[in-house]
């Protein structure tokens, strides 16, 4: 196993064995056969560093932070050494015209071959003027960059589904990458932020097999988003036993009981947090005592309170009093009408016939 990547990794103190182990883990996480790990390691070690252009739109840089600072020194970070990251505003040294030039050059030189990574949503309001880079709107930049891209990776919930900028009332008219680009393969890696290993997993898959991994109906890699948080949660047995924490610091919470009643959205959220965890496998939100917010699902921000259980009303009931009054009034009204009819029948000495009883 030889190649530019191995040399770089070796210089940074990462042995060949560690790299091979990492690739095997990655392969097994993506439910690929055991041989795939070795294939991945070999291909990536010798990879020709494909050009990658990373466009940031309406975002908070949280996704970039997640990738680059996951744990240090990071193999995930090292994976970035096997790609030629030709444009990434946060990480690149160049600025201004130089930066724009680098982007144009990378696009021209690698026409039809480069990977386009996007984080952040794209505003369409007032002709996209809510977010511009170098005087050009995000939608304009995206359309231009997408033309020559081999594939697009939408990193984070904003790029995947519009995310927080798209939250009601969506002042900027934010949309997802897939709302604009229809003719390129798009992989969504949602999460706020997404898990670093998912990102590198997709990159590794692309580099090794030259194709994108299997996706679910929301464009997410099935290997990482195939299960719900709830189904993989280590607190799941408590849900099944009916043991729920009632507050964040009661006895149940200390015992690690299920957070369903505190509003956990784990049952409707597809992500790999419960298995991969965060910060190098240290912990994850539910383990640290807070319910899942559902950040890897479309429109999670508008899915009702984060602290209300899924089986309870998302909003307080509004029409209860009015409906009760209307119902009671209608009932009394009909009663009065019935009594009047009865009184009239009685004074007219009407008789009851068999036909009346059949009514």
């Amino acid at each position, binding site marked *: 196993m030889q190649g530019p990547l191995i040399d770089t990794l070796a210089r940074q103190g990462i042995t060949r064995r560690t790299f091979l182990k990492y690739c095997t883990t990655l392969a097994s996480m993506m439910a690929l056969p055991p041989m795939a790990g070795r294939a991945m390691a070999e291909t990536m070690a010798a990879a020709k560093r494909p050009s990658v252009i990373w466009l940031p739109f309406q975002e908070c840089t949280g996704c970039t932070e997640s990738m680059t600072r996951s744990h240090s020194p990071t193999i995930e970070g090292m994976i970035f050494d096997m790609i030629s990251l030709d444009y990434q505003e946060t990480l690149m040294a160049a600025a201004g015209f130089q930066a724009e030039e680098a982007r144009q050059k990378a696009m021209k030189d690698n026409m039809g071959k480069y990977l386009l990574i996007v984080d952040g949503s794209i505003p369409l309001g007032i002709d996209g003027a809510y977010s511009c880079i170098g005087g050009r709107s995000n939608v304009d930049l995206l359309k231009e960059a997408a033309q020559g891209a081999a594939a697009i990776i939408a990193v984070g919930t904003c790029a995947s589904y519009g995310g927080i900028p798209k939250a009601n009332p969506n002042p900027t008219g934010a949309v997802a990458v897939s709302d604009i680009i229809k003719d390129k393969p798009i992989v969504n890696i949602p999460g706020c932020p997404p898990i670093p290993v998912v990102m590198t997993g997709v990159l590794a898959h692309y580099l090794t097999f030259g194709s994108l991994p299997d996706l679910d109906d929301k464009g997410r890699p099935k290997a990482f988003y195939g299960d*719900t948080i*709830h*189904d993989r949660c280590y607190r799941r047995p408590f*849900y*099944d*036993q*009916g043991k*729920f924490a009632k507050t964040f610091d009661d006895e149940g919470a200390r015992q690690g009981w299920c957070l*369903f*009643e505190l509003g956990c959205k784990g*049952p*409707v959220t597809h992500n790999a947090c419960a298995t991969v965890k965060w910060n190098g496998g240290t912990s994850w939100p539910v383990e640290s005592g807070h319910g899942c917010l*559902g950040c890897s*699902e*479309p*429109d*999670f921000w*508008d*899915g*009702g309170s984060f602290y*209300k*259980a*899924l*089986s*309870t*009303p*998302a*909003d307080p*009931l*509004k*029409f*209860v009093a*009015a*409906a*009760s009054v*209307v*119902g*009671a009034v*209608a*009932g*009394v009204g*009909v*009663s009065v009408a*019935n*009594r009047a009819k009865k009184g009239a029948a009685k004074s007219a000495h009407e008789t009851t016939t068999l036909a009346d009883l059949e009514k």
Partner: protein
Amino acid sequence: MTMNALQLLTWVRSTGLNIAIAIFLLGVLWRLFEIYSLGRKKDLSAPRHASGASGLHTVFRRSLPPLGMLKRSPVSYIGGYIFHIGLAIIVFLFAPHILLITNLTGLSWPGLPSQFVDMTAVVTMAAMVVMLADRINKPVKRFISTFEDWFTWAVTFLPVLTGWMAFQHVLLPYTTMLALHILSAEILLVVLPFSKLFHGFTLFGSRWYNGRVNAHKGVPV
């Protein structure tokens, strides 16, 4: 733009629930007022007395099959018992359902393990399917069945089926299934006050009434 699963779920948890509970309350109050204000002419005859003849006796007695009927119509009785008790367990003893009731009314009580409720749902659905088959197979039952009978069966069966399918992850993703489950329960809430399902509210009242009238005549029914 089409609605995604989470948006549908949020809708059924907010607007949908709002509408369903409003119609439910409106209908229940309307019909209870209407039914109980009807009144009957006073029976002026002297009351006769017989042991076991009273409103209260009838309330309980009508829950038991009359002599020989269990043998003649076992499906109706046994199946009826199973699915009514099953529905009660599912609706009132499944933790997420209790949570909803607590949220709406402030009342709370302990639930049963979800696997037990899961099993109960299977048994309940089996009993309902057997009863439906019986209704179709028995000529007399079929003859006296109207659209309302088939419709209310479906409206009752669907929430159990979709809830169980959501729990078991059958056919559709959990989010979609949960949304459909809540939607089907909301349809049930809307239909309940205006169909024969209203017996849930009037059952014991009407039994007591019949028992009381017959007790006056000295007949234990």
